[in-house]
């Protein structure tokens, strides 16, 4: 395995590097949390980094020919190929450095995908990438809970009941998306025991985000980070509330912040204090009713939603993560 860079954990917001590697030249929406994910991601990784970007809004909105926001080398990859892009890039670096065809040095390899590219189409390639413990690579899924680049269509990561152009509430069917959000990060963590690092995060918590990227890049081997990204266009809210909605998603217990380091689970931030009983989960209604995509929901719908979230905290083997337990002997 090739060596990793020295990227120490950042103590305090003031110690986050000032250098920017994702700068002007993109045309993401006002309030786009995913653009912040891109920015913080390369800020944490530094200049000796290669970024591969799957098709999605962080491809189309970021890189329009004749302008690029990327100061680091960047390459497009196909929608379902973030895992393969990372593997191919890391394999080429490893092979050429080992054979003396390229100067030896640790280079970060990061491939990003949206929820469409990661949770849906690219899942099998990500799974394959996480099996190659000889390659250092990070796959980051920026999850804005829809195919946000193609007019907002539901993905396997969209919340139950959300209005989208493929799940519009109608006269006969009020709830068109009846799928519950896929439990991606725990699935990848449980399914790849040799993967040393799987984490969830949210750019509303910049320091948590930065340090998770750094831990993912320095632990060695393939790693996965799943990021919860409020999207003003897809979720239908005023762009100024992106950060607040990210926090609300976690405070209501819908999204759980944690990291799994070498097989050990640690809850972080508000999720940790909720699990310890220090703070109460806010009602999901506070989160849902701030967004146009849930405006069609009735009291019963909200109740159903709340019960599903309650179940994940009260009945799951590990709250918010593992949705089953051992059957007790009669």
């Amino acid at each position, binding site marked *: 395995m090739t060596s990793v860079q020295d990227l120490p954990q950042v103590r305090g917001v003031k110690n986050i590097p000032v250098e920017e590697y994702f700068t002007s030249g993109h045309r993401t929406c006002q309030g786009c949390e995913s653009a912040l994910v891109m920015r913080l991601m390369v800020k944490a990784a530094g200049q000796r980094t290669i970024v591969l970007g799957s098709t999605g809004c962080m491809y189309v909105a970021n890189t329009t020919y004749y302008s690029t926001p990327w100061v680091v080398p960047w390459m497009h990859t196909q929608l379902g190929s973030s895992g393969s892009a990372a593997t191919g890039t890391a394999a080429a670096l490893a*092979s050429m450095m080992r054979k003396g065809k390229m100067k030896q040095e640790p280079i970060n390899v990061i491939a990003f995908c949206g929820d469409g590219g990661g949770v849906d189409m690219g899942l099998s390639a990500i799974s394959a990438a996480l099996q190659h413990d000889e390659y250092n690579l990070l796959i980051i899924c920026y999850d804005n809970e829809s195919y946000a680049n193609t007019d907002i269509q539901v993905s396997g990561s969209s919340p139950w009941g959300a209005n989208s152009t493929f799940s519009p509430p109608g006269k006969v069917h009020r709830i068109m998306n009846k799928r519950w959000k896929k439990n991606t990060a725990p699935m990848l963590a449980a399914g790849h025991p040799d993967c040393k690092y799987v984490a969830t995060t949210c750019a509303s918590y910049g320091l948590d985000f930065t340090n998770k990227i750094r831990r993912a890049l320095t632990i060695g081997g393939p790693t996965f980070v799943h990021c919860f990204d409020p999207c003003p266009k897809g979720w239908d809210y005023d762009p100024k509330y992106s950060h607040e909605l990210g926090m609300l998603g976690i405070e209501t217990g819908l999204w759980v912040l944690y990291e799994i380091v070498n097989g050990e689970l640690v809850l972080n931030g508000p999720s940790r204090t909720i699990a310890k009983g220090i703070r109460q989960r806010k009602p999901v209604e506070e989160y849902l009713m701030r967004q146009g995509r849930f405006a069609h929901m009735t009291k019963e719908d909200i109740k159903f939603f709340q019960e599903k979230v309650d179940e994940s905290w009260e009945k799951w083997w590990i709250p918010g993560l593992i949705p089953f337990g051992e059957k007790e002997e009669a």
Partner: protein
Amino acid sequence: MTTTQTQLFQTEKEELISGSEAIAIACALADVDVITAYPIRPYDTVMQYVSKLKADGAFDCDFIVAESEHSQFEIVKHASAVGARTFCGSSGVGWFYAMEAITVTAGLRLPVVAMVGNRALDDPGAFGVEHNDALAVRDLGWMLYWVATAQEALDTALLAWKIAEDPRVFLPFAVSCDGSFLTHSQAIVRVPDNKKVRQFLPNYNRGKLQLHPDNPITVAPQVNEDWLMEIRRQTNEAMLRATQVIPEAYDEFKQVFGRGDPSPWIEEFMTEDAEIVLVGMGTLAMPVRVAIRRLREQGKKVGFLRVKFFRPFATEEIRNALSHCKAVGVIDRDYSYGSPSFGGVLFNDLRAALYPLQRHPLMLSFIAGLGGREVMVRDVNQVVDMCQKAIDTGKIEQENTWIAVRE
């Protein structure tokens, strides 16, 4: 820059090997950096040999068993962008499963070399050869070559990296090998020594297009109607330049190895005074040559032209070779449902190439040997008879005929 070099092939020697094994040895000789595999018959024998060569320490590469053909081709695409020499391959519907990755590889001008072990497309299932799998990329910017022998497989693989990695070209190269007849059949192959290969094939240099922190470029942004047409035009120009780079590479091959085919484009067999010329690709050459030799003994003026490069298509060479004969019988090991005259893919490209000529031979299309069905000497005789009838009557009764098929 130092290079690792296989210790296995220090002297030139002759080996009894299959077409797949010949290409696996070419991978070792070429010091390929990243190879991806996924199982599908019949191409996958090449990867079995590659993995054994790696396991035995015969050469050093990153050999990745992908979880699908799509990933297989995406991985080498990205490895190639970083500057690694790459190899992969597939067959039949596996090649189609990878089609998205295959088309972007050409769009990105990445010199990936792939082996296609030609196989019938599903459904219904068949393991045998048909050319429709590889032919699907004919319009996408892949160079496409059909080999006829194991020796040609090894030589063409070495030439493939040479041509594809030429900065004037930077296009991917598919080495098409007929399933079973080539992938699984052994023949004596002259394996060159690795020093000569190194001399012929230096390291791949991606230059200013290499994706590396020292060269922080943005690759494949969204271009839309503003620029896409210019970029398509560049790919077309690269294919045009390949028509010059290919003969250069063949000349150098002859200089370094002291052997090689007279023409990179076509192989002519008894065509000089032929009134009827049959045309085909791949291992079809063998039964056709046998049949022609026998017909010549009977005094029939028959010849055979084997098309080697399907892309870029050797328009001039083929025009020159076919302009003097009276009838051309094209034997396609493929189909193109609903095409002009319901002819095969090779037939229609060939007929289009000959159209500007003042004097046209009569052109007949034949579909034969699909799904690995053997093409027999008697089938070739039937083709020749139909061509002769067209010459005698001055007209083509039936433009397209399926040979040796149950009615």
